[in-house]
């Protein structure tokens, strides 16, 4: 292990510090609130010669991801960052990056999608991209955003994986929230991520390659199966990189962050910053003797289905909190809920009552008293055996 140096940093700055330490070859990015600080800070590192990076200040997010694809195919270590509508504009190229197996790492500072226009946090942006073939980490804090960024790069570039990774954090709440963040020494980060030595590159003009060929009906299906199998088989690799980073940083790097889950009767599953709010409530409730717990997946793609089922299967009732709606899904469920209920069914755990709570859309504050009502609901569900409404709302007026 190596000692971290602690600094007061917001989540965006924590990520730009990680990017500075990684010193990527190419960053192509376009500013959008609340991601702007990531790009601004990094531009300063470029301007001051602190990094060797070629910064490509493109004219749109679509161009940002397009340039990332070109740079990554040319053998460069490539990073970028975006939010919300910017991510939506990249959509087409997200699938191209993953289909071409290009290990691009992108910070997503989560923000609501228009319309109506809203610049504040929810997860509708990255959740919409959950099927795009990118791995997805979600961070509760600036510290986790920093740690996830470094791990993401190492995981993305692993020869056995070669897939792009989104490292997500909550816009404003985490992105603009100043916290105590421990930074590893620069050399430790550079040693951890190592040098990127791709086997194939467009710039190797003596060994020309064709990238982005077109598949007729006779090959596309097989290629997509290969892609999904790589993703499906990646959990062991992800866990081993997380463990290695845990040893280096002396900070826990679980796939699932569990608190009170060993004996929890009532549990909330929630991503990112609201897990912190929930944990503080759980701590108080457990002091009062309530057997409650909180489970925060730090990894959403690939989905840690069996780990989640193992963690919650002995509960009496579980609430899944979603900061996004999967419009048109059954009852307008959220994406985390659909994945968890699917995982429970597949594992044969069909008797566990699970309720979905949509919360915090467009940056709506989610407070401990609001979360306390969720635990109250779960007690009622278990006591009466009546699950009631499958999809409910937290912090909604009227």
């Amino acid at each position, binding site marked *: 292990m190596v000692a971290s140096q602690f600094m007061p940093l917001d989540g965006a700055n924590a990520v730009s510090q990680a990017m500075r330490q990684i010193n990527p*070859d190419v960053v192509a990015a376009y500013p959008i609130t609340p991601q702007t600080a990531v790009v601004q800070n990094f531009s300063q590192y470029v301007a001051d010669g602190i990094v060797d990076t070629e910064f490509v200040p493109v004219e749109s997010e679509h161009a940002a991801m397009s340039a990332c694809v070109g740079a990554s195919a040319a053998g460069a270590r490539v990073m970028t960052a975006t939010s919300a509508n910017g991510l939506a504009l990249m959509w087409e190229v997200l699938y191209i990056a993953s289909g071409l197996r290009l290990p691009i790492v992108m910070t997503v500072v989560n923000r609501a999608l228009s319309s109506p226009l809203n610049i504040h946090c929810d997860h509708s942006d990255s959740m919409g991209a959950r099927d795009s073939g990118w791995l997805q980490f979600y961070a509760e804090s600036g510290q986790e955003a920093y740690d996830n960024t470094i791990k993401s790069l190492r995981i993305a570039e692993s020869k056995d994986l070669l897939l792009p990774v989104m490292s997500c954090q909550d816009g404003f709440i985490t992105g603009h929230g100043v916290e105590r963040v421990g930074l590893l020494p620069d050399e430790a980060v550079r040693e951890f991520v190592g040098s990127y030595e791709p086997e194939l590159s467009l710039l190797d003009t003596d060994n020309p390659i064709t990238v982005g060929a077109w598949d007729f009906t006779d090959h596309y299906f097989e290629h997509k199966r290969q892609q999904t199998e790589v993703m499906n088989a990646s959990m062991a690799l992800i866990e081993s990189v997380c463990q290695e980073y845990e040893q280096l940083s002396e900070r826990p790097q679980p796939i699932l962050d569990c608190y009170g889950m060993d004996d929890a009767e009532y549990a909330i599953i929630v991503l990112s910053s609201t897990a912190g709010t929930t944990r503080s409530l759980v701590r108080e409730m457990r002091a009062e003797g309530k057997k409650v717990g909180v489970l925060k997946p730090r990894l959403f793609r690939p989905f840690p289905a069996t780990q989640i089922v193992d963690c919650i299967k002995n509960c009496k009732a579980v609430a899944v909190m979603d900061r996004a709606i999967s419009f048109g899904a059954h009852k307008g469920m959220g994406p985390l809920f659909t994945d968890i209920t699917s995982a429970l069914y597949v594992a044969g755990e069909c008797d566990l009552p699970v309720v979905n709570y949509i919360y915090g859309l467009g940056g709506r504050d989610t407070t401990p008293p609001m979360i306390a009502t969720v635990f109250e609901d779960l007690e009622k569900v278990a006591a009466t055996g009546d699950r009631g409404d499958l999809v409910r709302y937290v912090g909604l007026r009227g």
Partner: protein
Amino acid sequence: MAERIRVNLRDVIKPDERLAPGHRLCAGCGEPTVVRQILHAIETPVVLSTATGCLEVSTSVYPFTSWNVPWIHNAFENASTTITGAEAAFKALKRTGKIPEDKEITFIAFGGDGASYDIGLQFISGALERGHKFIYVCLNNEAYMNTGIQRSSATPKGADTTTTPAGSVIPGKPQWRKPFTRIMAAHDIPYVAQASPHNFRDLMRKAKKAAAADGPAVLNVMAPCPRGWRHSSDQTMAITELATDTCYWPLYEVEDGVVTVNYKPRDKKPVADWLRLQGRFRHLFRPANAWLVEEIQERVDSEWERLLREEECTQGKHA
């Protein structure tokens, strides 16, 4: 003025084909001729990107490739940005010593007129403004040929396409084409040229100039489509030659703002001669549409005169 660059026949008969024979482009398609001429003209190693379109789908059918040089296809609109990403990587990897400082690569993006005039215009504009050292080549066949001859903003007025069909009320495309070459030149980049494959010396000289430019360069090259233009596949070069003889497609270049018209026909032919060879303009020769041929002639004349004035003006300034 840049140094005088000459092209001779030896440049055209190089044995190392960068675009291999056996690709699936149509007989008589202008695109492979243009691409081969450009790639023959450039001496350095090249890295290419190609927009979604005829050239792309006809040269990269998995598990085959027609490319003997590094080549990438990303999407329809972003061939320019993709190659600038590769160029950025080249700079970065030289800086960190992974690529030798003296390594030379010419980066080239190819796109059709749909990819250039329409869906990719913003991407090209951004790439030019950022000043990447690359060549953007528009393979201009004046419509979305790969998807079945739909109109683009490069389609000439009056042309019959599948989305501007010559009907009983509307005689083909109502609008004039977008002045793409002028828009490119308005970016004040080192080199912009309009060219045609029938004049291979001119096109190859322009490719060499584009490669030597100290910054971004754009070539807008006519590449007829026998399917879409409805002409016999052995008429491709004759049609491009006639496009320049009628001044419908002037050969010119803009170097650091100075316009040079490379070919001034001694005997400027009527544009109807060019239109008549192509089935897409057949309806214009009905008596009821004679006004449209006149209008096209007037527009071609006024654009030609404008170009000559621009040449006079800019050459004079630098005399």
